[in-house]
């Protein structure tokens, strides 16, 4: 079966007009993401990785070029609820229980009561939060809150999951654990994942495709297809292949800085 293209960007440009003149957040970005890919966007701040993710989500409008998501414009894809989005902060509503928070998109999208219950139970189980349904956000740790926000993004079963530095605010031990869980989740759900990070080990450990970006103007400097197997225990990070890819990512990041 030929691989299906999920996200396709051609000559994508985005320029913000600011008081100090135009800022090229994205310049001539070309990228193709295949269904089932785990794609990481890595680069220093200002390289446009978050902006690109927001373009995919239809939260920003590009000023040039084309981008399609599931063959539609991002705006249409957003209307079709084609993706779930996880932000850097969990952003759970303090007045809703964990179950209530996961239910939020389902209520908005008009799922039946019975289906809401069923889906909440299923996705909470998926992120290992079964039994926490009736707890309020403040009763959970930061890592658990972020897992709940992932469950919320999974609840309506979009086949794309966009994650904007979801573990950026968490400590490294929690982060390792969540990375491992995310890989398992990805294997079980076969979603296409777009993942923004500024951690090289995180990008290499998680991804099938690593997109290295650099700033001023925001652009892609390297796209690396990872040769690592789908099955990845944490200690794969000590293997030769892993270290080689990490090297290539680091070189890509450094190349982007030459003109500074």
């Amino acid at each position, binding site marked *: 079966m030929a691989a299906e293209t999920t996200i396709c960007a051609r000559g994508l440009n985005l320029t913000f007009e600011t008081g100090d003149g135009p800022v090229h957040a994205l310049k001539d970005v070309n990228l193709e993401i295949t269904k089932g890919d785990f794609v990481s966007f890595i680069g220093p701040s200002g390289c446009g990785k978050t902006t690109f993710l927001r373009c995919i989500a239809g939260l920003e409008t590009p000023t040039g070029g084309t981008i399609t998501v599931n063959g539609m414009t991002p705006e249409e894809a*957003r209307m079709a609820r084609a993706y*779930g989005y996880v*932000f850097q902060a969990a952003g759970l*509503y303090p*007045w*809703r229980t964990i179950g209530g928070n996961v239910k939020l998109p389902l209520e*908005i999208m008009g799922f039946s009561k019975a289906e809401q219950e069923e889906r909440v139970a299923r996705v909470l189980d998926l992120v290992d939060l079964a039994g926490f349904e009736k707890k309020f956000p*403040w009763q959970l740790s930061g890592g658990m809150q972020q897992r709940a926000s992932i469950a919320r993004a999974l609840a*309506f079963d979009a086949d794309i999951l966009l994650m904007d530095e979801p573990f950026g605010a968490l400590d490294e031990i929690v982060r390792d654990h969540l990375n491992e869980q995310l890989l398992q989740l990805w294997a079980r759900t076969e979603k296409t994942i777009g993942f923004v990070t500024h951690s090289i080990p995180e990008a290499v450990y998680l991804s099938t495709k690593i997109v290295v970006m650099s700033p001023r103007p925001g652009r892609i400097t390297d796209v690396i297809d990872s040769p690592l197997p789908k099955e990845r225990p944490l200690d794969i990070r000590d293997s030769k292949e892993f270290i080689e890819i990490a090297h290539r990512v680091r070189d890509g990041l450094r190349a982007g800085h030459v003109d500074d």
Partner: protein
Amino acid sequence: MKSLLPVLTVVGAILLFWIVSVVPMNMHLTADQAQREGLVVSPDTPAVRQEYSGIGLTLQNPGLMVRTYTLERPRLPSPHQVAGELWNTIALQNVTSRRSLVYHGWVTLSATLLGFAIGTGLGILLAVGIVYNRAMDMSVMPWAIASQTIPILALAPMIIVMLGSIGIQGLFPKAVISAYLSFFPVVVGMVKGLRSPDAMQMDLLRTYYASPAQAFWKLRLPASVPYLFASLKIGISASLVGAIVAELPTGARAGFGARMLVGDQYGQPLVTWAALFAAAITAAALVGFFSLMERWTLRRMGMQAA
């Protein structure tokens, strides 16, 4: 309950200051009365006594100190006199009697509550308009602020007279003035509350393709609840002040404001002071009620009270 001791300490200090102040404040009146009753007072003519301060006269006549606490028409009533008057007019009167402070309290309270309901409703509507409508955002707030700079004491009689001239009397005009004072904190608080969700929260709803109505009911409104309660506590006390002020300039025959005015005009300070205290107690009870409501609601919503 941790705050009980500090509160009692402050109350005790105020009470002590009050009790001590009664003596010099009432000494001239006491001296005049004692002289009429044939007691020896020094100096012995009212005109000369006027040259003395209250404290100076007290030092001349230490024996009269006790009598300053029991004057029938004192300049400053003592705490036990006010308490006695409160007891007489609250507990010992039929609540439908014109001598009962409960009756007068209800007259003021009903206007307060009606005005508060109108003001809160209006405040929430204006806040929603300000948040959702750009034209209102640009125009309403300056007017709302300007409205609060007009002395209510000047405005109240005008409103009452104008409404009276078109045949609206009694409860409603007073409620209008209460509403006038109480809508403002609600507008300010609710605008802040409805705008409290950050850009990320709004983006999240965009990713769900949520409608503006869904964003309002599911995010903005619940997020504004803590702000609303802060405003309600300010609004209810402003509302009570509004109702009392509305009773002052118009010759109202009932209500706390009317009692204060009657006490002043007929030289019965106890009546004024009792009304003043009853109003303060009512205000405290109303604010206390909303504090309890706030705690209960926020706890039910899963948010701990701040």
